[in-house]
């Protein structure tokens, strides 16, 4: 006859004993940490949710002593679209919609023609997006009818997403070329690639952006007008390509020598060997690394506020200086932090998920 286990060895009690009270020291630690949490968590939750004001139009609508989210909700449109003209915002929404469809198509594993989605997103979508947003292209049907919207009106979350996606789409091919250059057997090309990578990685993004905003206009002949956004994008692209190059190099190093030899034995030249045999394998290996780089880039885009572009953080910062809304810094920053956090945490979950899957595939 089997005996039942003692009460202390089951369920919640066992869990508590093993995870929170396994020794005297552990019990003390648990009690201290738990009382700290009980001390400061309830007031924070109360401030942020239970006694907060949510909707309205002015600060007079904030009557309770909690957070005043009215500041955020009444300006939500501006935080998302910047100064983009209200009548034209459907263009931004359309672009968001297209990119979501393409991204889901590319990331979800069971989509048919998954690679097609990814390729469209990387190669065709940036152009569609750009012309859709800026409009006013003469002589092109449809685009001709859209009123032109100057890039200095672009802002908010929309600009943040544009900076990050254009940055990554443009940096990817450049980064791959630099990675190949770094592993090349030609000394001049190798030296040049190493220098490019190390210099861009060795300086802060701020100095790159400063260089883009004050020096690029000096570099080109004075007739060429360079858009401020374009200058920032060029700087971000070079900076980012150096990081991508190092990630891709890691992938290239992980491909066994036999693959190169087999490709050469088949009579493939350098470019065909890379494009058909090596790169597809290497890139698959480094997708998690690239996602992590995108994550870093996404956070770094906030630095453009220093050269006077109005990304999400800059526009929240500007709203905080509105004399009608002084004193809501905490609410403003928490909102911006929350939006950034959703995107970045999402990306890091995705990359971890991929890493696990990759790990599994490599073992089986």
């Amino acid at each position, binding site marked *: 006859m089997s005996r039942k286990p003692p009460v202390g060895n089951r369920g919640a009690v066992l869990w508590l004993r093993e*995870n929170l009270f396994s020794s005297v020291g552990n019990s003390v630690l648990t009690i201290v940490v738990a009382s700290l949490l009980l001390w400061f968590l309830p007031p924070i939750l109360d401030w942020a949710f239970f006694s907060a004001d949510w909707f309205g139009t002015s600060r007079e609508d904030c009557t309770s002593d909690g957070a005043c989210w009215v500041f955020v909700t009444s300006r939500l449109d501006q935080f998302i679209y910047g100064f983009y003209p209200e009548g034209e915002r459907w263009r931004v929404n359309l672009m968001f919609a297209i990119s979501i469809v393409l991204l889901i198509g590319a990331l979800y594993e069971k989509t048919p023609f998954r690679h097609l989605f990814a390729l469209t997103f990387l190669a065709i979508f940036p152009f569609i997006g750009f012309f859709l947003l800026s409009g006013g292209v003469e002589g092109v049907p449809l685009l001709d009818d859209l009123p032109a919207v100057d890039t200095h009106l672009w802002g908010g979350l929309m600009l943040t997403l544009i900076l990050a996606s254009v940055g990554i789409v443009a940096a990817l091919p450049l980064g791959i070329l630099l990675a190949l250059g770094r592993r090349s057997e030609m000394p001049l090309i190798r030296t040049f690639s190493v220098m490019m990578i190390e210099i861009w990685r*060795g300086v802060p993004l701020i100095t790159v952006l*400063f260089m883009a905003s004050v020096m690029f206009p000096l*570099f080109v002949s004075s007739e060429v007008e360079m858009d401020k956004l374009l200058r920032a994008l060029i700087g971000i692209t070079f900076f980012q390509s150096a990081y991508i190059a190092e990630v891709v190099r890691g992938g290239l190093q992980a491909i066994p020598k036999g693959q190169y030899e087999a490709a050469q034995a088949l009579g493939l030249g350098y470019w065909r060997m890379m494009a058909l045999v090596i790169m597809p394998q290497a890139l698959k290996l480094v997708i998690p690394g690239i996602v992590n780089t995108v994550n870093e880039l996404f956070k770094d885009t906030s*630095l453009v506020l220093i050269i006077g572009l109005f990304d999400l953080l800059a526009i929240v910062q500007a709203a905080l200086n509105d004399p009608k809304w002084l004193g809501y810094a905490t609410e403003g920053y928490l909102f911006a932090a929350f939006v950034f956090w959703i995107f970045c945490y999402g990306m890091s979950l995705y990359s971890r998920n991929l890493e696990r899957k990759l790990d599994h595939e490599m073992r089986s």
Partner: protein
Amino acid sequence: MKWWRDARVRGIIWQVVLFLAVVWFGWSIYDNTITNLESRGITTGFRFLNEEAGFAILQTLIPFDESYTFGRTFLVGLLNTLLVSFIGVICATLLGFLVGIARLSSNWLVQKLASVYIEIFRNIPLLLQIFFWYFAVLQALPGPRQSMSLGEVFFLNVRGLYLPSIIQNPGFGWVWIALAVGLVAGYFYKRHANKVQNDTGKQLPGVRVWIAAALGLPAIALVMTGMPFDWEIAKLQGFNFQGGITIIPELGALALALTVYTATYIAEIVRSGIQAVDKGQTEAASALGLHNWQILRLVVIPQAMRVIIPPLSSQYMNLIKNSSLATAIGYPDLVSVFAGTTLNQTGQAVEIIFMTMGVYLTTSLIVSVLMNMYNRKVALVER
């Protein structure tokens, strides 16, 4: 085989093409820049470094006022960058190791709390965090007259944190000498203790003697010279505090944000480093009768360091580079005073940006050399 199919010939052609492209590109940039600078009436060269700056700086580690040169502003900014980087590296390492170890704690609550901290703070832009600490937290502190104080010695208000400073009277030099002697003597004693342990297996109390020498000798010197120092405590005079050491809120916010942000990365590095140590090592150490803390300190961490050091050094470099965000809140670091104010005053963008970038490149290089030296020391020695 046709000559253009020869890999060597093609390699040479590729390189010549790249070389010519780079030369052409560089030359056209140079030519454009010179033309543009001339048309704007900006002189080139580094003569501006000897001109009078004519502006003041919020916080300086070396004497500075309006009459000093632009060359001096460069130095002031550089020192301020190094100051905040140094504080950041030390604090982030301590916090990072603590959280990294907490992440592996057997205590569920502690472990979850560490994870929540990491997931929150590594996924929010650093600039946003700097703004948050500076504008939302530190700016909400009370004014000088309503300062928070600890025993009327430390004061905290919206203008900064005020600490007492030490005024050295004649004779204090002996304390510094005693400190140096204590450190050197401790070093040789530790070497001796290591040698004894290697030769005989006997353990002498090495680190403890070192600490005792480094603290004890200066203490003896202090007593013997008759306490030749005074405390200067900050005092409220008029609208502000005078005297003592002031930590300006810009420095506080920047150091805090750099620490909290970088520590999340360091914690993950420490965790993966510790997890990379074979579980058998812990079991073997535990079978030898070592305590948990001893296992961590003597067996696990020394081996984990081999995995930890390389990524840790790139985090240090990131922290130093990220300290340039100072410019957003006006802490006078290199980018803020030199690539900001000095550039606006002189207009010599090319020289100033290149000098600034050069500093960061050099610093990265120095950090990586130092960390590589340390890495070689801890790396596994194999035949």
